[in-house]
């Protein structure tokens, strides 16, 4: 098995079955519906226009492409829509390196050459984003390939395996046709997805957000820079936005919607499920830089009579983010905050211990109107992971988590 690169293939002379030179290789195409890696066709530039030569009809690739069929049987390129064309769609374009977690630009494409029943088979192996591909392309046609190859061997390659390459296609119709999804991107940590998103152009961000699963999109969006966040939201349809916002932490969702023009926010809220809408719109009422504006309404609170077994059950059924469950709150029948049980104490306690005996002393809480500075001071002084927020009647209204405080402080550094 040997390697052949896209830049070596492009421009190769093509001979038909009679041995007559019919044209040159203009494009190399994949049919992603059939196989994500195997080359399906060459597009050949002939005197009578572009023709599609299926690779199955190629008998030899060796300094030239020899076809087993006559040139006049090759179909015109009108039907080339369904192919991913490597030179046009990939070469010099940006792709996402899912393994390296960044956006890179393609210099060349390496293909593995194999044989099946004496016919050549080409499979995309990796994209070259390093100097080797760049030098090869710069010197192609200037220095003979045979002389160039040994020199290139000395340049360390920077290759990304094809399985780790995520394509960005801004045209939705082509995305469907070419089966371009972001399944691999979606496996990354939301913060890494966010970093990648920030590096893309607006249309590309939109394209990625339209294909990502709502849950992943929501988590990634929470991590994106607020300015970019706003731009993404404004570019998407409001029902799609509503789907994503529903999946977000209510406090993050409220922060995001607060940045948008009022009419736009209203429209998104209308599209949301009633339950999530109520939570978010409640938070929207608060001033952004007060404790209430920072808090989330997704947390675990249990009656004062509950025991550790109840708490574990509540944890099992909790659907919100994991950052809020590091403390479980106890409230009385009026909803007044009575105690806070750290997760660690709960884990170490014997089964069916009354939660009231596990509470952390003293009970620290912030008033809904407390400002950022007061909130940060409480976190610092008492080494908190979460801080309960109470209203005028000392009722538990929400919880501020330490990650929100870190973001808030980072904005000021």
């Amino acid at each position, binding site marked *: 098995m040997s390697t052949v690169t896209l830049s070596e293939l492009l421009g190769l002379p093509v001979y038909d079955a009679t041995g007559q030179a019919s044209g040159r290789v203009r494009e190399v195409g994949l049919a992603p519906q059939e196989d994500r890696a195997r080359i399906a066709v060459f597009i050949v530039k002939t005197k009578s226009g572009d023709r599609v030569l299926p690779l199955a009809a190629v008998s030899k690739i060796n300094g030239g492409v020899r076809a087993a069929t006559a040139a006049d049987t090759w179909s015109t390129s009108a039907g080339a829509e369904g192919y991913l064309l490597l030179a046009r769609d990939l070469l*010099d*374009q*940006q792709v996402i390196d899912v393994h390296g977690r960044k956006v890179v*630009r393609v210099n060349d494409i390496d293909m593995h050459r194999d044989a099946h029943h004496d016919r050549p088979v080409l499979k995309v192996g990796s994209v070259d984003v390093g100097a080797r591909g*760049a030098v090869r*392309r710069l010197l192609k046609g200037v220095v003979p390939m045979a002389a160039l190859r040994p020199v290139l061997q000395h340049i360390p390659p920077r290759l990304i395996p094809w399985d780790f390459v995520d394509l960005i296609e801004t045209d939705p119709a082509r995305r469907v046709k070419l089966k371009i999804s972001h399944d691999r991107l979606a496996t990354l940590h939301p913060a890494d997805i966010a970093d990648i998103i920030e590096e893309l*152009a607006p*249309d590309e961000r939109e394209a990625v957000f339209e294909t990502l699963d709502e849950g992943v999109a929501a988590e990634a969006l929470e991590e994106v820079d607020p300015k970019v966040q706003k*731009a993404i939201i*404004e570019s998407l349809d409001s029902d799609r936005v509503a789907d994503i916002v529903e999946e977000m932490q209510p406090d993050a969702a409220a922060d995001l919607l607060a940045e948008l023009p009022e009419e736009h926010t209203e429209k998104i809220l209308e599209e949301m499920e009633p339950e999530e809408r109520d939570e978010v719109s409640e938070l929207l009422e608060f001033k952004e830089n007060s404790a209430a504006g920072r808090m989330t309404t997704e947390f675990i609170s249990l009656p004062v009579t509950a025991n550790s077994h109840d708490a574990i059950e509540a944890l099992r059924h909790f659907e919100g983010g994991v950052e809020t469950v590091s403390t479980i709150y106890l409230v009385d029948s009026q909803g007044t905050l009575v105690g806070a049980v750290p997760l660690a104490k709960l884990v170490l306690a014997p089964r069916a211990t009354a939660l009231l005996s596990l509470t952390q002393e003293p009970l620290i809480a912030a008033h809904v109107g407390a400002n950022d500075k007061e909130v940060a001071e409480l976190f610092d002084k008492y080494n908190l992971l979460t801080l309960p927020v109470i209203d005028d009647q000392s009722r538990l209204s929400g919880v501020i988590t330490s990650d929100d405080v870190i973001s808030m402080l980072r904005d000021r550094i």
Partner: protein
Amino acid sequence: MKFLKRWKTRLLVFLAVVGPGFITANVDNDAGGIWTYSSAGAQFGHMLLWTMIPITVALVVVQEMTARMGAVTGKGLSDLIREEFGLRVTFFMMIGILITNFGNVVAEFAGIAGSLELFGVRRYYSVPICALIVWLIIVKGQYKSVEKVFLAASFFYITYIVAGVLAKPAWIEALTATVTLPPKSTWVENGYVYMVIGVVGTTIAPWMQFYLQASIVEKGVSKRQLRASRIDVIAGCFFTDLVAWFIIVACAATLYAHGYHNVADAKDAAQALRPLAGQYAYILFALGLFNASLFAASILPLSTAYTVCEGLGFESGIGKKFSEAPVFYWLYTILIVAGAGVILTPGLPLVKITILSQVINGVVLPFVLIFMLLLANKRDLMGEFVNSRVFNVIAWATTIAMIGLTIAWFWSLRAGS
């Protein structure tokens, strides 16, 4: 009330996008600009004033194209050239830009050397220290806070307008010279074509297009904000050229009128501000030139490193560590060190070197314009925002004129030798 609210929204929209155009305009009047305009006025009096109107029209058209491409595609100019024209074209373009911008960096350090020599600081001290300051400002991530100081200090340019007025120039003559072509005999005068290329090159510099588009993208200007962004960019263009006009007029009324046709150093150029500041003119001039040079010196190497790395696919960004983006940081560092190093060559004629760098700008400009024009006319890229016919005509005319001038200049070199 409703009117007031609408007006307020508009103002907010405008403020959200203002900046890139205005900053670019101010950096445009850098050391290269000040020296070139000063020399133009001193050497040829009003003979170059006619270029100001066509240059302004071309500048507005070119900068608007740049801003539009940035807002519509959300990508930098070198990214677009790479994606649409491939690696080889990009590579040669980047080499060209690197050489041209290096010339501009040298010019900025020449400005630093010249301005501080007016205070008796020798360039062997001032240039290395300022190079280090510039390097640190960026690497330590302090640029955003320093930018405001630079911008505020840019109001120095207004002194040229005041000086121009106080010098009691021949208004009628200056205005007439602005709207009429000079006699044919001027064109064959020694160095005239060279100076025209320099004046165009310093005003519509290639680096500005890359820098402006990158700033628009970074600011996140969207298609819908394009109208406000246009105002920012176009106002910047007019400001640049207004200052240029007054520098030429001030130098014509002071230097040219008294027979000082050759601006050899900062001391000569400072005389243009004499009507305003008398014997203290040199202080005013030195501070202004120093600010302009330092401002541009902190932008140019950085912008160049970004442009080249993005076009060729190297990691870039001041948010990254040295080990993550080595090419980016090395390019940036070498541009500063080598740019400052050139100025330390003993006996180097600062003004001549500076004007040469601006002429190179003018020679490279048409190549950049050709690619910009091809890009701005691509419908699959720009959609409904493709160039209008008027824009194409003006931009192509500029391109052809610059190629013509370059050929004429080379011809005169051959004829001269």
